[in-house]
């Protein structure tokens, strides 16, 4: 609990949000990097379909997305069964895992698009040159691609993080709003509004607004200065 302008603010949802956003960002970078690389190198017209699929969360209502994730990740559903088969225990939804999964889907375009653009901007010749100097694929990836797409990774990570922080619909559906476990800031703001605690809602909203603005300015600053494409 924190006292701010005479109003006590429960910090647990903030920490949880930051934690989930951090984990989501890591997961997104781990999954998004190969996906973005693959997309960057694709030439076929499937690429258009894949790009559209990745971008889908940008235009779908989050509650709709959340509702279907809820159905797909149902503990008796096929996805969970499949994972059980590999020794997975526990449940995908209504836990931090659920929050992370939901956020990963929701923030996917924000992570994949800047990475893809960064990868596309790496001149093929540099990779060719490395290949003639006896560097294999992974060697080239880590010694040439990664250092040269630093800014792409940074933009990707900050956008994914910020977007997860601002996430509401999916998280509410998939997470279940359990205090300390799945209640994130955006839901908390809403609970405050519901229970007529407008002061707390205002304070949390202001914090979120300032945070988002800072993150975006960072991203666009990098973008201007280093020519990383965003979004």
């Amino acid at each position, binding site marked *: 609990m924190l006292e701010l302008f005479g109003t006590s603010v429960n910090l647990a949802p903030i920490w949880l949000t930051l934690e989930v956003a951090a984990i989501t960002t890591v997961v997104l970078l781990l999954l998004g990097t190969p996906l973005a690389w693959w997309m960057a190198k694709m030439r076929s017209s499937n690429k258009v379909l894949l790009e559209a699929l990745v971008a889908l969360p940008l235009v779908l209502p989050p509650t709709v997305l959340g*509702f279907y994730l*809820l*159905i797909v*990740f*149902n*503990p*008796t559903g096929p996805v969970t069964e499949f994972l059980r088969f590999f020794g997975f225990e526990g*449940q995908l*939804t*209504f*836990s931090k895992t659920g929050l992370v999964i939901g956020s990963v889907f929701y923030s996917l375009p924000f992570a994949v698009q800047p990475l893809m653009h960064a990868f596309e901007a790496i001149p093929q010749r540099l990779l060719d040159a490395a290949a003639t100097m006896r560097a294999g694929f992974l060697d080239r990836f880590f010694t040439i691609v990664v250092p040269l797409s630093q800014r792409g990774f940074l933009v990707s990570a900050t956008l994914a993080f910020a977007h997860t922080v601002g996430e509401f619909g999916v998280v*509410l*559906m998939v997470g*279940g*709003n*359990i*205090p*300390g*476990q*799945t*209640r994130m800031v955006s839901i908390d703001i809403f*609970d405050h*509004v*519901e*229970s*007529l*605690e*407008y002061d707390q809602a205002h304070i949390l909203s202001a914090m979120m607004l300032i945070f988002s603005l800072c993150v975006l300015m960072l991203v666009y600053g990098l973008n201007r200065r280093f020519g990383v494409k965003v979004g």
Partner: protein
Amino acid sequence: DTANIAVAANFTKTIEEIGQLFEKETGHQVKFSFGPTGKLYAQIKNGAPFDAFFGADEKRLLKTAEDGIGIEKSYFVYAQGQIALYSANYPVAEHALEVLKEAKFNHLAIANPKTAPYGERAVAYLQKVGLYDGVKAKLVNGESIAHAFQYVVTNNAEIGFVALSQLVDPQSPVYQKGQYWIVPQSEYKPINQGAILTQRGANNAAATAFMEFVKTPKAIEIIQRYGYNVQ
């Protein structure tokens, strides 16, 4: 023990107060997840880890029993919501029906009659007293009773059917401001808010204890203080 309990959003403050008392007296822990009743139902149906479900109506609670998730014999009505007509400027305390009949206001806020019992009862009452057609064009539907209340509080609707609980709460932004009129309980079918224990909660001491605790006079006192009736 710790119990996770899903609670209809309108009951947020009340149940938090009961919960604190409960934790102090029994040493059990309760965690509340708030949300629209339909969404909570969808979550429970898809494996949400809730030990008990305090809804805003009866229908969706009993449906959980039908689905084999809720335990039918644990079902009871823990509160009856009271509808109040609130306005900041119209003399509703004395002349509610006249105000409704003249219908000089631009917007009358209610909760969505399709999804929220408060809205449904408000519409039924208006139909019963023959005023529905006169105000039909001016109705605006909040997604929940809290949302309907926001419309009134923010002045977007001059008048609205809200829950009495939202007016009598000392923290409420309209506490002792404006005027309200409690629609007599005899005029509409009671808004029975039902609670049910889930299969998951059957073995949870905290959940079962809480179900009982809500029926104790101490709890009832709190419920009534927040503007609900208890049978």
